[in-house]
């Protein structure tokens, strides 16, 4: 590759939201290497001010179509935390099951539809309909299962309806739970085929150790409850999330970023896998072994593989929840009505792309006076850029410009970024326009 190159990928495809990759190398020296975010700002925190506690999760759901379950969970949990609402075991099971539906849909979409085309040399999933129809149909079927879990628990997976602070306004029937349970069992076989496909993919061999941050709860692969865990610093109370995220702006930056013990940290499937491996289900651990993923993995491209491994855990976790609910019977619980007061609460949950925080302050009439949301993709941006800054200099002599461009696009996609979650992302001045 030449001594002077510029790479400009505008509006990276097959990611949610708008982002650009910019690389500028002059005479063999990397001048600039960055990920720009060009999503329009949407002002969610300001829009939440003055809204009633019953509306908060309906509004924040719309931060993102693909992460709407996650935003609702974090929102509802922040409100429940603020008002001190005590919840039942069944409520926790329904929330987890809804989260599992989202993971299922989101991880299948990412691994099969957004990432796999790179590995088979296709520009998108559509040409695969002709060449790999069975895989596409299998992916569609698996995605549908995620949606049907969401429909069953909350009326809808994209912008759910029946999850409110204090409880669900609708209960799944036992018949529906049994039907979903059967389909979850069937899905395992399909997933094993998918894992075979993923195992054939050749991922770039790139290693960079970073700080891994996830939710943490002794005894379980934490999804909706727990404290924060840093691979550098250990356990930190979820209430102290601001001490971990430390949002900041940099002069060239396009987005609010975060950092804790190092210049950047990583959240998402690989961070969860590295931090919480011991509590994965047996079949997920087997899948990890088959796919060559080991705890303490420092290759960000393996995030896609970690998602595949999590899909096995999700099947086992959903099965256990549904079996327990069926053996105990569904109780028709009505949402708890909170006692209103001046208060503040934090919701921390693991969503497909990583740990998500919402924090609300309420007045004594139940209206929001202040809101804050910190999204997984914002937390990953600096880590992606730090990866790029190691990949580019090493590639200058050995990769062509086209190969390097693909390496970088695949890197960004591996993080499964969701730029639509734009509550904290800024706009950018284009240097080349």
């Amino acid at each position: 590759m030449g001594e002077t190159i510029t790479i400009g990928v505008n509006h990276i495809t097959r990611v949610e939201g708008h982002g650009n990759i910019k690389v500028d190398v002059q005479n063999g020296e990397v001048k600039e290497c960055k990920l720009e975010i060009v999503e329009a700002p949407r002002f969610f925190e300001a829009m939440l001010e003055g809204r009633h506690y019953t509306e908060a999760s309906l509004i924040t759901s719309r931060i993102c179509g693909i992460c709407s379950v996650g935003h609702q969970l974090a929102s509802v949990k922040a409100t429940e935390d603020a008002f001190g609402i005590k919840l039942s075991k069944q409520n926790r099971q329904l929330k987890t099951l809804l989260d599992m539906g989202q993971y299922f849909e989101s991880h299948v979409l990412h691994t099969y539809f957004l990432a796999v085309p790179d590995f088979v040399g296709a520009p998108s999933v559509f040409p695969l309909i002709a060449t790999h129809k069975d895989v596409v149909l299998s992916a569609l079927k698996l995605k549908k299962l995620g949606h049907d879990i969401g429909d069953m628990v909350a009326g809808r997976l994209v912008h759910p309806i029946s999850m409110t602070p204090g409880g669900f306004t609708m209960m799944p029937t036992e018949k529906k739970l049994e039907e979903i349970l059967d389909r979850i069992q069937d899905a395992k076989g399909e997933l094993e085929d998918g894992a075979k496909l993923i195992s054939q993919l050749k991922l770039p061999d790139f290693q960079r150790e970073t700080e891994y941050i996830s939710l943490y709860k002794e005894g379980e692969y934490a999804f909706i409850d727990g404290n924060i865990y840093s691979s550098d610093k250990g356990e930190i109370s979820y209430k102290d999330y601001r001490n971990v995220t430390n949002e900041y702006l940099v002069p060239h930056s396009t987005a609010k970023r975060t950092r804790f013990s190092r210049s950047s940290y990583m959240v998402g499937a690989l961070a969860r896998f590295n931090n919480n491996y011991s509590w994965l289900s047996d079949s997920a651990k087997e899948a990890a072994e088959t796919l060559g993923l080991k705890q303490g993995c420092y290759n960000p491209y393996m995030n896609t593989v970690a998602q595949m491994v999590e899909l096995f855990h999700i099947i086992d976790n959903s099965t256990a929840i549904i079996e327990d609910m069926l053996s105990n019977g569904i109780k028709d619980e009505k949402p708890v009505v909170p006692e209103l007061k001046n208060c503040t609460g934090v919701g921390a949950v693991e969503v497909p792309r990583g740990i998500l925080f919402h924090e609300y302050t309420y007045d004594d009439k139940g209206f929001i006076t202040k809101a804050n949301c910190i999204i997984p993709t914002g937390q990953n941006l600096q880590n992606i850029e730090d990866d790029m800054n190691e990949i580019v200099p090493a590639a200058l002599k050995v990769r062509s410009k086209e190969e390097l461009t693909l390496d970088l696009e695949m890197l960004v996609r591996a993080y499964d970024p969701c730029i639509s979650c734009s509550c904290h992302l800024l706009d950018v001045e284009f240097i080349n326009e």
Partner: protein
Amino acid sequence: MSKPKVAFFDFTSCEGCQLSILNLETELLDLLEIIDIVEFREAMSEKSPVFDIAVIEGSYSRDSDLKRLKKIRETASVVVALGACAHIGGINALRNSQNKEDLMKKVYPDNPFLYETNEKALPISGAIKVDAFVPGCPVDVKEFVRVVKNLVLGKDPGLPTYPVCVECKLNENVCVYELGKTCLGPVVRAGCNAVCTSSGGVCIGCRGLIPNPNINSQKDIMEKYGLDMKRIIDSVNMFMTEDAKGVQ
């Protein structure tokens, strides 16, 4: 006859409507029998300079997007607004009651004027002429397929003109007003099969008003049940920008 070329574009939005379309499962394959999808950034790397039908998700909230919108309008013979943001402003319009400078200072206190935004978030019709729309947040994908089929056949999109109450009653739900809640069902366009009220929620108006809504009757209902006016105004404003209330 060659299949019409369809391109998807997104502006200020959550991309949930496009995502819902990717969730079409096998109907997506059927739809591909009658159309060619030539551009869809969320799902594919291919791009196309030519297309017949442009499907646009998202609100218009930045001047710098106007050029791209006009180009799409010049190229397409039919422009379809996809979902509440494109159709009536959507959730983005919630901010329209606040002053732009205040918003920027509130959300980005460290550097409030680094980026660009318009005074208001508007539906796509605030920037270019729109020929048809698929309402909802998110869209109902079956309705999306129906609208596309009708457009390909040169027919009217065929959206219902009656309110959500009709579908809600057919689903045999207890009226949520009887449960002491506020609901926009009497004045909002049906077509969603009353999914929210049938799942224990209330209608929050994401599909926009029906043509000639009976606003006086809605006021009567609220008076009858002694409901709080602020709450109902808040819920109407959740999806509909002031400038889009006339859009039908």
